[in-house]
């Protein structure tokens, strides 16, 4: 294998390109195979463009409440749907371009096409057959083309795609996935969102702010099912106040398509059925890993429920073959994929990194209000047998929150009563997605409540709510 790469990454998403850059830093001869867009779903059709849309929604919302801040706006406050979408695409394009630049700077080869592993250490790249989601970004300059490539180590980082419920398959017209929801031809007047995870809730929040009638249908008794029940309940109250209809313990059993709308049949947990009409529906019932057409089955790679089995450092059961990110299992989050990519490459390099600790992975939902969390929920902690100390602090007790006009929010912290270990932190409210990292660092450094209590949080900031929540867990809260 004269021209073998040390590391060849299949997939240029946040897991793949970060793994490639880390590999290059460690001196490995590295390549990334990408079939559609550098930066993956995250950067092109996920995290980033949705944040751009939500930013538009946020400003729109603020403008509509200008009076609350003593401001006057002349004329009608409105928006141009095409311009809102264009801004989102431009943001994506800029970052997509940026990934190409970073790979080039790190001398990582980019191979354009679809990859299949023909045998260990050998990858066949063919021209992309999958039609690119439109509008697509241009293929970067200087990429390598179809052919057979060799590599000592292959990292599968092919990401995930929307999960489909049989009978309610997205058609891209009336039933959307996040792809279509991100680039609507027009903003619907009414919308059903099936699924209340991060993706569903973010779109519900966005479209509601932009004026649509939004109904969220969740099969579980709680929206944002992975979040702490109190936080989810707090968020739900706020969503309902904004006019979002939320139906929990309810499933969509049937969708009838019409000329320019749908009729969904819903059934609650008591078997009560009803129908609901809307112009569009978003199917946001989770994502599923892209494990097909890669030659994995032929190689005998262990795949369990659509997830490539790995050892926590990205190794599969086949020597030299690794998997990271969404294909290696939940939580299917960009920052988890990035970190797994780094761990995987460092393990290949013999650096003996610590395996990923899934409890340390924060989760953020950028709805209004935002939701952010890390670690165990109270219920999970108790189920695991911890004797817990729980602290809570509402934003209403925080000066900065009041000044911002964001008095709704809650920070909840959960400690192991025996050791003072911070088991989990859960937040809902303005900017909490920017705050949660404080608790993430705290957990990674294994602080106890003592260090958190001893830390000085700047005044006036929203972060003081974090401090107060810790104080509350130990009966020392000041501003409540």
């Amino acid at each position, binding site marked *: 294998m004269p021209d073998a790469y040390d590391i060849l990454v299949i997939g240029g998403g946040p897991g793949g390109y970060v793994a490639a850059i880390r590999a290059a830093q460690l001196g490995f001869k590295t390549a990334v195979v990408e079939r559609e867009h550098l930066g993956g779903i995250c950067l092109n059709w996920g995290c980033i463009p949705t944040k751009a849309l939500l930013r538009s929604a946020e400003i729109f919302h603020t403008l509509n409440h200008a009076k609350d801040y003593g401001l006057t706006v002349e004329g009608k406050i409105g928006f141009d749907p095409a311009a809102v979408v264009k801004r989102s695409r431009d943001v994506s394009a800029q970052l997509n371009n940026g990934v190409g630049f970073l790979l080039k700077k790190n001398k990582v080869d980019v191979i354009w096409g679809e990859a299949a592993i023909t045998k260990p250490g050998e990858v066949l790249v063919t021209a992309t057959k999958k039609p690119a989601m439109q509008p697509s970004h241009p293929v970067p300059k200087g990429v390598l083309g179809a052919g057979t490539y060799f590599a000592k180590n292959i990292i599968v980082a092919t990401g995930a795609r929307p999960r489909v419920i049989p009978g309610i398959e997205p058609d891209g017209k009336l039933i959307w996935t996040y792809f279509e929801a991100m680039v609507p031809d027009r903003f619907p007047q009414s919308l059903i969102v099936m699924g209340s995870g991060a993706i569903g809730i973010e779109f519900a929040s966005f479209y509601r702010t932009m004026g649509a009638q939004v109904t969220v249908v969740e099969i579980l008794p709680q929206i944002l099912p992975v979040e702490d029940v109190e936080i989810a309940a707090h968020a739900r109250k706020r969503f309902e106040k904004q006019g979002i209809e939320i139906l929990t313990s309810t499933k969509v059993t049937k969708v009838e398509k019409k000329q320019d709308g749908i009729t969904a049949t819903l059934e609650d947990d008591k078997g009560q059925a009803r129908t609901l009409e809307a112009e569009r529906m978003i199917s946001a019932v989770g994502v599923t890993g892209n494990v097909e057409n890669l030659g994995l089955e032929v190689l005998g790679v262990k795949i369990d429920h659509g997830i490539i089995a790995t050892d926590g450092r990205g190794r599969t059961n086949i020597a030299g073959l690794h998997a990271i990110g969404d294909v290696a299992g939940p939580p299917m989050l960009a920052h988890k994929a990035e970190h797994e990519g780094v761990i995987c490459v460092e393990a290949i390099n013999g650096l003996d990194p610590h395996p990923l600790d899934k409890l340390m992975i924060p989760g953020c939902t950028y709805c209004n209000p935002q939701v952010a969390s890390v670690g165990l929920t109270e219920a999970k902690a108790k189920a695991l047998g911890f004797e817990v100390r729980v602290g809570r602090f509402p934003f209403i007790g925080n000066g900065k929150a009041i000044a911002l006009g964001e008095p709704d929010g809650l920070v909840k912290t959960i400690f192991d009563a025996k*050791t*003072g270990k911070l088991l989990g932190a859960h937040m809902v409210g303005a900017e909490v997605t920017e705050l949660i990292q404080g608790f993430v660092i705290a957990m990674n450094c*294994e*602080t*106890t409540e003592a260090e958190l209590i001893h830390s000085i949080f700047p005044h006036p900031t929203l972060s003081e709510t974090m401090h107060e929540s810790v104080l509350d867990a130990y009966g020392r809260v000041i501003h409540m």
Partner: protein
Amino acid sequence: MPIDILMPALSPTMEKGNLSRWLKKEGDKIKPGDVLAEIETDKATMEVEAIDEGVLAKIVVPAGTADVPVNNVIGVIAGEGEDAHSVASGSSPAHEKAPAAVPAAPATVSAAPAFNGQTGPRIFASPLARRIAKEAGLALTAITGTGPHGRIIERDVKAALARAPSVPRVQDLKAPSVPLPAPSDELIRQNYAASSFEEVPHDLMRKTIARRLVEAARTIPHFYLTTDCNLDALISLREAINEAAPKNKEGKPAYKISVNDFIIKALALALIRVPDANATWTESAMLKHKHADVGVAVAIPGGLITPIIRAAETKTLSVISGEMKDYAARARARKLMPEDYQGGSTAVSNLGMFGIKSFSAIINPPQATILAVGAGEPRVIVKNGAPTVAIVMSVTLSCDHRAVDGVLGAELLAAFKTLIEQPAGMLA
């Protein structure tokens, strides 16, 4: 490379301490584990142990120096093959500074890196790891960190706990652990009118007694067995033996065996007859001793000490008697060496001369038993169905239940009683 021995910190807040004494002289060979010196603060006393091999090249701070600042050089160890004299001639800048004692576990202080692999005076450990270790009584110095840069994290402490008890506990390393719930000195003083007492500061012996007996009373599960021994035969034999003692020109007998000498010998032989009781408890194993080393509590002004008659089962009564006289004299002069009083598997504490009928004693760790001996006195006993008078002595054996169970203790005491009541058996 000569290595400096630094003044250790007994606690994170300690700034200085007293160097009470050196146990090694300049020029002495040092091997790992040797106790080099004793350090005293207001709260505690500890031993400075060597980790390196070499020669104590120079004592920089002489014994009896008060208020030596932490991390000051107190002595210098020369490595193997190094010229101790050239090393001793002065502390050159090339000296390798030994890490200071680590605050969390100050007992093992020496010129080598702490054995957890971290160097420097600070142990890097996460707050959570520190707390769990503290609550479990684990010494951080004994834990290998696997976090970034060798930092000790929660996982390491839990792994160490799972390995316990092989990992040293803080109380093993930390010298005197004062009883935790004990009220502060100030609170105790408040019970008495200010002028109604005189304060006598503790000396090292008093502190050691307090520390060791608190440790013994707290950690050793004691139980007590009492029996009465008929001394009639022993007293007759003792008189006969003492009368048979050769006399020198001044008419002074060569020996005068005491009842206590018989008791030492009887206890030693009993331990050999009941070998399972001749044991020492450790967390990982039972140490079964091959000889019966019997400690004897000797009261001296201000305290007591327990020198040990080694292999007492092999020694004649006159030899035991001679050793005891020597020990008692040296104990009163405070000239006993550690090897005179360390170890042993049992001890005798005799308060019979004060007319005490019976009492129970606290075991002197690491021993497994101690025999509390009361006065031999005429008592009415029943013999062959009729009351008669005999000289009877009550003895109480305290046992460490971890090492000696009830039946085993009873067997030991029965063997002892047999030897005391048929003392000719000791002469065999």
